[in-house]
């Protein structure tokens, strides 16, 4: 997209119904579920198609801004969560990708949103997720040699003696 300096970005160019229709059109042929909760749109997918879904959303629906990337641990599976925003049509969207807890790997989206670098590294060390295609997936916040993945539910904090 090209940005004209000073242009105000808050106008919706189409309604929510049109957005869901567009989403169905763009994601045609891929397995996904679309749902709406607390005013937010969620797309639930499986891990292996993350890159394809993100690329289509980015290129065809102009979701050009990644608000944030994180993950969540549900014991038997993990979820990688992508919060997207489009400056062009002022819509937000949350993509949740389910991945296996024993072999947690997902394609890196760094080729689409370059700023995701540190966020993927953080999710990698906190949840032990392998972001395939990330060029530099080393430890970020934790010290060298730290064992375990702190934000997994199985990781227990040391209990106070008192």
């Amino acid at each position, binding site marked *: 997209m090209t940005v004209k300096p000073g242009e105000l970005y808050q106008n919706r160019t189409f309604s929510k119904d049109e957005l869901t229709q567009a989403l169905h059109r763009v994601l045609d042929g891929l397995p996904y579920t679309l749902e709406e909760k607390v005013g937010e749109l969620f797309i639930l997918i499986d891990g292996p198609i993350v890159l394809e879904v993100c690329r289509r959303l980015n290129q065809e629906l102009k979701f050009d801004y990644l608000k944030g990337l994180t993950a969540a641990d549900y014991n038997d599976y993990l979820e990688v969560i992508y919060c997207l925003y489009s400056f062009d049509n002022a819509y937000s969207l949350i993509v949740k990708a389910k991945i296996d807890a024993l072999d947690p790997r997902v394609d890196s989206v760094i080729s689409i949103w370059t700023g995701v670098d540190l966020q993927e590294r953080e999710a990698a060390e906190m949840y032990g997720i392998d972001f395939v295609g990330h060029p530099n997936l080393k430890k970020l916040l934790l010290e060298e040699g730290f064992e375990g993945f702190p*934000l997994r539910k199985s990781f227990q904090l040391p209990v106070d003696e008192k």
Partner: protein
Amino acid sequence: MTIEVSDDLRTELMEINFGPHHPSTHGIFRFIATLDGEVVVDIEPYIGYLHRGIEKLAENKKYMTGFPLYDRLDYIASLTYELCFCLALEKLMEIEVPERAQFIRVILVELQRISTHLIFYATTGLEAGAYTPFLYAFREREAILRLLEMATGARMTTNYFRIGGVKWDLPEGFEKELRKLLSKFPSRLEEYDQLLTGNEIFCQRMKNIGILGPEIAINIGVSGPTLRGSGVRFDLRKAEPYSGYDRFDFDIPYGLKGDAYDRYLVRLQEMRQCLRIISQAIDGLPGGDFRARVPKVIKPPAGEVYMRTEGTRGELGFYIISDGSANPYKVKIRAPSFVNIMALKPMVVGHTVPDLILIFGSIDIVMGEIDR
């Protein structure tokens, strides 16, 4: 005098370590710059020196027991984090916040926005070699902190907002003190402009360095004054109004070029807009309750929510997953500085080391929220 250097004469690249305690790194931030002579060719940030595991700690505490932790993220703008956390839970629990509480929140958050922008102003001056602005900015910041102490009981780690409102009502005499500040602040802003904004040396140093184009800024995920400095006129207070911001009349300052000077100007102009918001809010401060009736133990329904607000440094978000119990299942803090530092590399490559310090300062980071 220039020295002719033939093209096939290669100089050895040199790696230089900055920090973690270098005074210009605004906290314990470390980066390794690869230099060709004095020109930066690559830069890599190393963070985590202030990591306290707040996201994990929050999972092990009740919603409000973990609340003071969020004050320790951006320790010089703690109320912005409190506000975002409260809004996220209020969205999840569908709580209506009384108007008076919304106005009080806006007044205090905007005061804090001014005070953090003053720190930016002060440190930018220091980095450019001007010491005086620092003293002037901290004089006004002190007045703001005194107001915050009056209202919340603390200067920095305020712990004042609550789900559904605020902890207690504004104290007697607060309005009078605030109006005193509002009346003298515009002349102080002029002083700042005279000291630094129009200063020839400062302009020479700040202009045309660290240029960040709007498209690349959006692609990286940059937000806040750094994004607006690049010409993207986007402010969450306008785009997705929360806490009654749609009732106030204010402008969104933006830059044209995207250099360090534009980012500086955006923040200085934002202080003026903050004053406009505060004076409208104090004039129209409604009566009534300062807190809605909410249960003592916060137990949001199972579900998840992402709430984002315009923090002082950019998009500040909380992603909260609730499983219906009294502890959050997951709290993810989307800190603006954490994403904004990714813009450092495209900004500094090709500039010299003294410029690197200024460019880095112009992103305006705080380590507490980067490391969390």
